């Protein structure tokens, strides 16, 4: 068996590190550990991991701070671990360049899925013009969206949103990131734009818009395109 991706686990709780090591090694990951921010930065520089799992609350510095320092020299994907759903630090972390987040407690299945997405995005994506999710197909080259084979008519804004989601399929996108990308930097606080346009997108693409399965809301954070 070839050696899998290298992952650096940063958490001050030894029990969390131990359980992650067991689960990750069982899934063919090579695991490094760090118990605080300073050690994390050293380990990251030393082992050049493919992905980093970073706890938000570290004894020596905030997880966001570790992330900022790491981002000065590395683009390694980072998945943040946050403690509470209402914890808004994770939005800062995502805006500061984290790839995704998970709220403790989380299931290993979920973690592995996020790790896969993060790793996939860190590879230069092959220019694949046609992308499929659920029963929706989007042809980026022809700017054509079909659902169950029928053409779906999208406004330019809706299309821009969908294209952005597709480009980051599986990854969470914060409100600010989406607004900045589609509307421009001066619109980053206008979250209600998103409520309206995502509502429209769901009406056009979801089987049951009241219970969306493709374009899901991450409460207080942003949106995610679910691909699997």
């Amino acid at each position, binding site marked *: 068996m070839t050696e899998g991706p290298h992952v650096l686990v940063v958490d001050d709780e030894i029990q969390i590190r131990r359980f992650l090591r067991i689960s990750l090694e069982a899934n063919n990951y090579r695991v490094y550990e760090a118990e605080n921010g300073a050690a994390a930065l050293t380990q990251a520089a030393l082992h050049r991991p493919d992905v980093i799992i970073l706890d938000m609350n570290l004894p020596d510095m905030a997880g966001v701070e570790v992330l900022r320092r790491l981002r000065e020299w590395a683009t390694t994907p980072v998945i943040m671990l946050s403690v509470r759903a209402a914890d*808004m630090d994770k939005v800062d972390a995502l805006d500061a360049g984290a790839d995704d987040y998970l709220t403790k*407690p989380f299931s290993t299945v979920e973690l592995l899925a996020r790790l896969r997405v993060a790793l996939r995005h860190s590879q230069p994506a092959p220019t694949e013009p046609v992308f499929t999710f659920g029963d929706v197909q989007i042809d980026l080259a022809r700017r054509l969206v079909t659902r169950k084979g029928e053409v779906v008519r999208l406004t330019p804004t809706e299309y*821009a949103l969908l294209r952005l989601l597709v480009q980051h399929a599986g990854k969470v996108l914060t409100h600010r990131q989406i607004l900045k990308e589609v509307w421009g930097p001066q619109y980053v606080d206008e979250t*209600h734009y998103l409520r309206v346009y*995502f509502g429209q997108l769901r009406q056009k693409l979801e089987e049951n818009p*009241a219970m969306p399965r493709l374009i899901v*809301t991450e409460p207080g954070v942003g949106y995610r395109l679910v691909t699997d």
Partner: protein
Amino acid sequence: MNSMEADRPDPDRTLTETRREEARQQRGRLKIFFGMAAGVGKTYAMLQAAQTRRTEGVDVVVGYVDTHGRAETEALLANLEQMPRRQIEYRGAVLAEMDLDAILARAPQLVLVDELAHTNAPGSRHVKRYQDVLELLDAGIDVYTTVNVQHIESRADTVRQITGVVVHEKVPDSLLDMADEIELIDLPPDELRKRLAEGKVYTPERVEAAANHFFRIGNLTALREMALRLTAEHVDHQLQDYMEAKRIAGPWKSGERLMVAVSPSPYAAEAIRWTRRMAYNLEASWFAAFIETSAGLSAAQRETLTHNLELVRRLGGEVVTAAGEDIVEALLRLAQQRNATQIVVGKPLHRHVLERLRGGSLVDRLIRASADIDVYVVSGRTADHETGAHPSLPLPQRQSTLRDYAWAFVVVAVVTIGLLAAHSFVPWVSYQAVGLIDLLAVLLIAFYLGRGPALLAALVSAVSWNFLFIQPRFTFAIATLEDIILFLLYFVIALFAGTLTARLRTRERQAQYNADRMTALYTLAHETATAVDMDDVLHTAIEQIGAVFDAEVAILLTQDGQLLRRVHPASTLALTENDLGVALWVFENNKPAGQFTATLPQATAHFRPLSTPGRTVGVVGIRLQQAGRLSFDQEVLLETFISQVALVIERELLDEAAEQSVMLRESERLYTTLLNSISHELRTPIATIAGAASSLLDPNTVLNDQARTALTGEIQTAADRLNRLVENLLDMSRLDAGRLQLKQEWCDISDVIGVALRRLATVIGDRPVAVTVAEDVPLIKVDFVLLEQVLVNLLDNACAYTPPDTALAISVTVEEGQVRIDLADHGPGIAPEALAHIFDKFYRVPGTAAGGTGLGLSICRGLVEAHGGTLTAWNRPEGGMTFSIRLPKPVQAPVVQEASL
């Protein structure tokens, strides 16, 4: 009096003695090296004593000693630690002053402070050095100090009379009383003059002048006697204090009590000083009485009065005020009430003619009416002109001005001309009627313009009446005896009626002023009593004080026994860093300071402690809008105001404390319930996890695939349950602590519902859930995560308490400016008596299955209410129950625009 009684010490006195003893133990000890004049060797003696103490191992520092270049004195200073002096810049010159704060910080056992009577440079904390010494003593530091007899307040007059030198630097007598030890440094006058001649006292150029003036043999002998006597008196007192404290029978102190009458005359100061000296010699207590009459005082008189009353306080006396028209009667009444045995009054220099008419001068009448009370009449030879530089604020009183006299004249002239016309052309306007109309004019003038103008009017109108109307007209002669009597009567009546009316008016004004004062006090008392909370109280207090005194007001409160270094937001006066320092001093020393006081007078505002009998609850700062200082009356009123405010603040503080203790008890009760509730809730999943894990470790179970999967599932469920419990507890505590911060943003309710349903997918399972959202439901501004939490809790609840296959329905509608979210189940509903309680903390419907803390619904309601909404529950008549969330509908929908791509 039997001997038993005589042997029993007066309880009051014992108490005073005990207090003094207690105060002494905490306070530093004060030793005064006392001399008759400069050059007797006080500083030298002090340094010698300090050296002895140093060799005994006492921590001695030199706070401030001036050797005046005397070599032998300097030698004694050599091995003592000297505190650096504080440099104060004043009008271009740099003055070196004792650094009080440095000494307090250094906290030695003993500090040497030369020249107790010294006046500090402007910009120092205290005006006088003796105040610095008092603060050092208060801090528990022993002080050695020096002072000459001419600086003692009660001797200042005598010194001026003997030597002709006006002493400006005075030390209150109370400092001598306070001294634990007084050492007299005595030197025969000849010897002192010899030392002076040798240049040991002053520099050569000053020697001659000094020798011919202050240091004349006659002066020195008198000063020496004064110093010796003061010291002897003091020793005598100490002996007596000791004897009484130890219950040694001996000469009891006299039961004398002196009362000095204080008037707004500059001569009263001497009577006050005399009384203080006399009281001390008689070992009697004394107080000063001021009688307020309706007669208004001029600004200058007010100023002198304030100054005199200040002198009383400086000399350690108490001021008692009483109101009354008859000063003699009021004085005697006060004397009786206060058990005064002797009354001291100043001797008036000149006598009023009117006084004789009234039955003699005040002094004469006082002596006649005083019965068994002795009356001393002290001559005021020298006026005390040491008055403050600030004029007092004028009181609402009326001094007739030149203008008023002019007006009086004009009125009389106009009336006379009018009458002349009337008399000439209208036959029935007789000259008698003219007289009466003139009289009316005089009365009106008296009423509106005062006594002086009324007298003028009486005179002028009488003369003009005689000249113009009485036969023979246009002469000053009067023809008939009847007319002469009429004329004289007119004059007398005009005079008396005018005076009476004017006095009535003055009294009315005084009464009005008093009434205004009472009204102000009543308003303050009433407003503060009805104030609902501390902020309200302070707001009212600041407003009232500001209005009555025409001042800006700041109030500083305390927290945990410390003065907060910021003014209360209701304050109208902003404070600088320096002012805050003054306020802090006021708080710590519980004494007024700042403007109009001797402590930190350079401050831009006047500060007073808000003290109640028990403690100091804060500090008030006042800055008058007009230039000038507070008059005595105003100061008394301010003091009354402030004590009233202090009491109300105290009351509020006590209320708050009581409220807090109730809250504390309530939260204790809740926490007990919480612990009982969650210990069970915690134990169940923990037991499951521990049990299942141990089974998984058992080799027999491990081999059984089915059992292993089932056990793992159980662990998962238990962990979820634990997690939910923790989430609930955290939400609860955030809601309770009021730390809940809503992150409100525009949300699509169907989106919120969708997320909640997705999160509960496993709990809901195959149960049908119908979601209907009306077309007109707008985006609402809520905290997405918290609203989702509410829906999750409600849905979870519905799933837990209704049969697994029954349907749920969520509908969103708009009604009456609200967005209403209904969650309907088709379960058995809830008993009406339980319905009222389901939102209570820890309430669980009796008979429901185990599991659940009774927190979920309570949290839901808290979260909805935090959004300004309501959460209600009701049984539908056709069966099942509905939870209704109502949230405010935004007034205006947000604008949405297409991206410009």
